[in-house]
């Protein structure tokens, strides 16, 4: 087993509302090995961003409360740290990039100044050296004529350029872990391709680990080593890229993959749909949270929550129908579901 840089254990984060605590993540457990990329995928309201903000402890400022669980970063629990201790970690050893690069940058400072600030704060570099290194970082992220660009303000740059600046800032202190929350969602496809390429190249160069949050299965397929699928605040499936795409085990993952129109093969026919819509977090269904939308829901799904069970290879899924091939007696063990997926086409589910 490789060394883990990040271990999230049973993380439950909620927000206080008039109707009590609403859980945005419910006992989320995730592991990230050193040098790997873990993609957290899910639709809106699945809790993926809240998970990221909880790791950074930025959720405290967003009004969230970490109710339970641990976030172990190199074995140290970040949940119990005080905010002034987090200041030394955040922006230095763990950094984050956000969806909208324009609002992540301060409009009244030049981009070079903003990168230099990070270096002065965390590395205690003198003014000149910080500036020199910030120009250097701009060059590394592929910004042409960085000496001139460093003296420009964010509004003078395009969205793709701004995202490069944000990446330069995030990597300036050579972090061990980079958290990227939808880093390419606001960008056009050709620019998205540039940024994804840049991230994977820099990940090797800086020997970082990466936690990437996205709603786009395509992006996840391209950059991830492992993928965790979240639904309504919980992880429902986790595995390697090939396991998730070729042998998905949770009906939600299967449905999600089937709903995406492909780029080749048959087109124009009726698309597969997952009936209904995502439940609001204040009304998470009982039992399995996916059961009202699941085509295979049984009685047990309505009452008992399925645990996230792990197969021998480490592929985890939380479904009563799922059979890991292991001998575990479950209440009212149902028919077995076989998922059969051919590459490039959509998965099919058959009852046997």
């Amino acid at each position: 087993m490789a060394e883990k840089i990040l271990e999230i254990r049973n993380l439950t984060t909620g927000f206080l509302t008039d109707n009590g605590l609403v859980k945005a993540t419910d006992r989320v457990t995730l592991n990230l090995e050193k040098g790997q990329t873990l993609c957290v995928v899910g639709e809106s309201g699945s809790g993926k961003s809240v998970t990221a903000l909880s790791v950074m402890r930025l959720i405290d400022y967003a009004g969230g409360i970490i109710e339970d669980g641990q976030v172990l970063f190199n074995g140290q629990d970040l949940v119990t740290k005080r905010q002034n201790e987090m200041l030394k970690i955040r922006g230095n050893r763990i950094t984050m990039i956000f969806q909208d690069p324009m609002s992540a940058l301060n409009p009244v400072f030049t981009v070079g100044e903003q990168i230099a600030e990070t270096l002065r704060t965390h590395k205690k570099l003198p003014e000149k050296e910080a500036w020199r290194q910030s120009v250097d970082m701009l060059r590394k992220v592929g910004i042409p004529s960085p000496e001139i660009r460093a003296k420009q303000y964010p509004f003078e740059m395009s969205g793709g350029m701004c995202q490069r600046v944000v990446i330069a800032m995030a990597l300036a202190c050579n972090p061990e872990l980079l958290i990227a929350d939808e880093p390419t969602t606001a960008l056009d496809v050709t620019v998205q391709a540039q940024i994804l390429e840049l991230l994977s190249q820099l990940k090797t160069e800086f020997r970082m680990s990466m936690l990437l949050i996205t709603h786009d299965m395509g992006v996840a397929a391209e950059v991830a080593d492992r993928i965790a699928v979240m639904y309504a605040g919980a992880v429902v499936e986790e595995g390697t890229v090939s396991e998730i795409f070729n042998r998905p085990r949770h009906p939600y993952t299967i449905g999600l993959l089937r709903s995406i129109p492909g780029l080749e093969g048959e087109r124009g026919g009726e698309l597969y749909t997952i009936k209904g819509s995502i439940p609001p977090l204040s009304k998470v269904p009982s039992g399995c949270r996916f059961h009202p939308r699941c085509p295979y829901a049984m009685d047990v799904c309505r009452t008992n929550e399925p645990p996230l069970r792990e197969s021998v290879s480490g592929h985890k899924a939380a479904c009563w129908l799922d059979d890991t091939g292991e001998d575990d007696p479950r209440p009212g063990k149902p028919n077995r579901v076989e998922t059969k997926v051919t590459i490039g086409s959509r998965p099919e589910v058959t009852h046997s």
Partner: protein
Amino acid sequence: MSQQPYLLEVNHVKKYFPIKTGLFNRVVGQVKAVDDVSFGIRAGETFGLVGESGCGKSTLARVLLKLKSATGGEIKFGGQDIARVGTGELRRLRQEMQIIFQDPYGSLNPRFLVKDIIGEPLRVHRRMSAKEVEDRVVELMELVGLDITRRNRYPHEFSGGQRQRIGIARAIALNPKFIVADEAVSALDVSVQSQVLNLMMKLQKDLGLTYLFIAHGLNVVRHISDRIGVMYLGKMVEVARTDDLFASPMHPYTKVLLSAIPQASPNRTKERIILQGDVPSPANPPSGCRFHTRCPFAQERCRVEEPKLETLGPDRQVACHFPL
């Protein structure tokens, strides 16, 4: 399909926005948002329009509906030039063309009940009694799969996908022939997006609609469109049947665009062309071919001479000196 007459014909349409500056709003330049675009949409087909932000696809859509007036060129809807029609006639034409917007939150009046939103076009254009409007609203809500018992509620009580259904119900209320869907499914989650796409395809079949489907999600456009037009910086660079376009793109930009899409199938290795730089500003577009600054195949001729959109095969036009 190719025998069908054109419902909408667009000839050399231009839309320029003036750049004004200083105390007296002096015009110092022009943003050529749509520059000399020609194409046609046949009755009953879905024409997909793709391109990156700022390429002019939304402006083009608004010009086609005369929500913005064209700077030049000719737009024929059912044989009638919409630039020349008077106010009264335009009002009649508007009933036949409708639009569905991207943002299901911003495009519905939050102070209107859902039945009033869907019924508004009926009250504006038809002389119907309140009872008749209500009956038609119920019919429309059933058609788009909304719960009719919720017609006395406000938009904020609906989810994103349901709001988009409200927008669709409003668009089809007057039995239009032509609907522009401007990024109509782009803001929706994948599981909801497929529901709305299915609905749009079903309505097209049942009501004989013609769609102009604008989106940046190429997989979605591929699924729903019969033909696709690719725009870059205010120009139409390629028009082709969907299958032809995906099988063998002829314009370098189309090829780049297709190669850039991240695919949800990790086992396939594919050629990826990564472009250098960003989209240039439409206020100051490059000389010659507008794509030459980023084109991996650009030659001297591309820098000086602007390529025309030429027909290179059945149903296929490409604007490139050296088509692939």
